């Protein structure tokens, strides 16, 4: 049952912000969850990403990456190969990962995967009927999976708005705010610090910075939208 749509709410602006955050969550998921491709780099370098970040007052955050991207243009194959090696080193191994990309590593003293905190993340996903593609063999709280969860919820929020289901929209946004507070904002800053301390490659250094700032900004965005809807 839907609440009556309040009149003086800026629905268009909310719709733009929801679409915007969904896009950025997906983009970051791709960057932190998959081997780098030219396609991903092009997306990052696109006008739309620039516009998208500008909406969040983050337009200057791409400058570091852009200088890498122009270097990439000089020898695409070589630079992409180097970037892939760095992704392998930071995210896959086989040597000890300098900044393991799982929440449980940062919220427990023991720095392990598949912990009780992982089950809490799993509960969140299941609340929306999601599981990781490689359920039970890969830990649920990988940074890219948490980003995917946020992207999916942003998508659900968009749909609720399209269908004028304000109650559902508010509930989803509250869940996202809560997931950020209880999970992502709790560990990503330390993860990003560890990652930045262990990479000299500008791409992941800068991308980690964007990730860190974006989560904080998104928390503010979600808070604002909820406030707007509760006018």
């Amino acid at each position, binding site marked *: 049952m839907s609440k009556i749509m309040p009149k003086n709410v800026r629905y268009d602006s909310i719709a*733009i912000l929801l679409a915007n955050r969904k896009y950025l969550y997906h983009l970051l*998921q791709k960057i932190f969850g998959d081997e780098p491709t030219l*396609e991903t780099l092009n997306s990052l370098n696109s006008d739309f990403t620039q516009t998208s970040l500008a909406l969040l007052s983050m337009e200057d955050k791409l400058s570091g990456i852009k200088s890498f991207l122009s270097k990439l243009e000089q020898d695409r194959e070589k630079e992409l190969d180097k970037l892939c*090696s760095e992704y392998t080193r930071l995210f896959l191994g086989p040597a000890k990962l300098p900044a393991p990309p799982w929440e449980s590593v940062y919220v427990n003293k023991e720095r392990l995967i*598949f912990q009780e905190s992982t089950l809490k993340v799993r509960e969140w996903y299941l609340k929306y009927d999601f599981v990781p593609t490689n359920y039970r063999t890969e830990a649920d709280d990988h940074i890219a999976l948490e980003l995917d969860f946020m992207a999916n919820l942003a998508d659900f929020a968009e749909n609720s708005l399209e269908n004028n289901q304000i109650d559902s929209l508010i509930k989803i946004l509250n869940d996202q705010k809560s997931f950020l507070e209880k999970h992502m904002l709790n560990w990503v800053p330390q993860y990003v610090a560890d990652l930045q301390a262990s990479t000299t490659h500008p791409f992941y250094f800068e991308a980690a910075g964007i990730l860190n700032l974006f989560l904080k900004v998104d928390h503010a965005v979600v808070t604002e939208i909820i406030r707007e809807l509760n006018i």
Partner: protein
Amino acid sequence: MADFMDKVTNSKLSRRTFLKASAAAAASLSLTGCANSLTIASAEQVSKANKEGKWITAACWHNCGGRCLNKALVVDGVVIRQKTDDTHPDSPDFPQQRACARGRSQRTQVFAPDRLKYPMKRKNWEPGGGQRELRGRDEWVRISWDEALDHVAAEIKRIKESYGNKALLAKKATNALNAYGGAMTMWGCTSDGAWPKPQQFMNGSRSRGSNDRLDLRNSKLVVLWGANPVWSSAGNPTYNFLQAKKAGAKFIVVDPFYSDTAQLLADEWIPVRPGTDTALLLGMAYYMISNNLHDQEFLDKYCIGFDAEHMPEGADPKENFKDYVLGTYDGVPKTPEWASKHCGTDPAVIKRFAHEIAVTKPMTFSSSSAAARTYLGEQFCQAFLTVGWMTGNVGKAGAMICSNNRHNTQSYGGPALVRAGRTGAPSIPNPLYSEPTFPGPDPFKTDWHGIVWDEVWDAVVTGEYTAGIRGKQPCDIRAILNFGVGNPLNQATNFMRGVEAFRKVEFVVTAAHFLTATANYSDIVLPATTEWEKFGGFLSGNPEMIIHYSQITEPLYEAKDDDWIDMEIAKRLGLDPKELYPLSPKQQVFNQIAGCTVIKEDGSDYEPLVTITEQDIAEFGVEGTPQQGRISFKEFRERGIYQVPRSPGDNYGYIDYKDFIEDPENNPLDTESGKFQIHSQALADTIKAYGWNTLAPIAKYQHVREGYEDTFADFEKQIKSDYPLQLFTIHYARRSHSTLDNIPWLREAFAQSVIMNPADAEARGIKKGDIIKVSSRHGTVIRPVYLTERMMPGVLTLGEGAWADIDEETGIDKAGCTNVLNGGLANGQGVQAYNTCNVQVEKYSGPLQLLPDYLWPLRIVEAQRGTK
């Protein structure tokens, strides 16, 4: 933060246009291929999730000998916590099988973020080797299992077809390799030291002499020679010894180090230099003989070779032990004063010690393997048994001369009271090597093709190895295949030569749980499952219990079990994997359960342990026949352990050699004479046949390479050499061999420090907490130093098993891997001389930094930047 709603509103962006643009941008991201993505949960996944936890018996599978009980509280595939044995109340007679720090850290190993997750290929490898010198410092590329297995099979095939099966080297020749013609392998005594052959020829078996554990309480004196069960035999051995102490036994511990065991149990600590135990024993023998304290009656009746009147047929009567000790023919009486010059033990202490073991009855005289893990370790074994037998403590309550007492037999004796059945899975023999790889082959046979550990890396580099009576043989190793075997590069002596060998061959593959030192120098690494990810199995530690463990979690990431890997390789080699692995893991476990036997209450025989019904078989989904046992199938699976309850006077007591002592004529030993052979020509001939050195038929103190005397340039004039100190290596509480070395909990609890006497430190300007550089003739490590008077002057120790971490520029190992220091001194029957190694030490003032080990991730980052 800015007001984003206002910002968007003021930007005058059109909702419709923006949504269209964002949809287009998102479409270009192609997230469908992203492995790190969510999917819709199935109804089953939703209903099964987050159910209440269940305690499951979890494997503690390492080769420490303990194999204690570990249980994991598992919720939805996640281990919330662990516990140990609470299946019955603890008592000295019927003790719980409690886990040590290592066992309790198990979940931190299985769920460590640095587990190998995917098959990986060295970036600059290509079939044939690629840039081989980059092994150990190359970058890595993730590859699919198919690609990895295709490469592995293609290289095995190519090398076999070009150079033959002998060009393949594998510690474990798997079923697939063996069906494909086999591989050269490595062999050696490793943990047994020099015990196997002396035991075979002198007392007719392996690791004999121990009575039942409860009988220890009847001993008036217990001598532990080179044994530190507190560190190296966690589980119950120390507790069992403590019961003997409480019952009134005096304890004497012989060791260069006043160990934790000495601290707990010893009434007296007798320090002895590594590799000189034989001299100490000969000095004791001299005292006993010259004071007529030896048990002549026992020696006459049960032994051969002690004196000229009791020599084996055909032996030179002058070559008897007594005359050697007295110096009758060589002019050197082996007096306590003579002994002291070698072993460093005070002559007065030697005499008192000899007196005490000669007159205190009954006595337990128990040696571990440590003193035998030396160059010419056989002579120690000969001397230990001989001096032990001189006291006559055999075949009676509380009386034991125990050889090779360590690992799962430490403090235990007699046959296992409960045993698991066989899996029924076939094991294909290696066509190139059908002899045992441990302790080693028969040197007189000529049909085996294997290389002793100490020579293996040399053989790869130089193309020559020692093959028993065949002498030096050529070899041409092109591939090193590490399937289902720990960490052979790290755990064999001569690590630095090993790196050369790894960088020489055309192909190296390693299946492992982590990027171990061995995996690090490989071309392809394959992620293997731990026992927690397998269907289940059995472990046996001490002889009074068995543990049946079950699966705890799904295989993590892309890890696969060893059998699966071997089957996939077999397939690609044109073999039928079903023939090599006809039984499912479940059927194998069932067969083991059905085959479990337990000793009958009257001690007369064994009976089936587990009752199995038709229904059990149907529910489990296997083939089998019902049987009657003591405990139900379901209960056994749930308990995961069966331990035979014990009490003094029960029917399971055991006195070793009782039959022989009571009636030697009708119960002869399995030796040449049927008696204890203090003199054995066959032993001497066999050692010679191995091809490295000779051994006297009786215990003599012959020159020990890298022993105490080799710390001198001139022993007579007492002029020290460039390597004036002695290093011995120990099993350390932090690890089980090399396993668990990467676990932060254990790293924090047990520092990998060099233990050293303050006098040696002071002479070198070394202070507490300094980083020191330890150099041998074979390699260099840096480590923090731990100074204590508990260590004999002139001697150092370091725990074996640390994962070597070689600084590429200096060649220095920062982890303290003892095999960087231990050279490959092939000797005897193929004994790894881990405890005879000459070193020099200085304060380290170079550029390398050493943080506490448990903070090592930071250091690893630095080492890997841009190179790995």
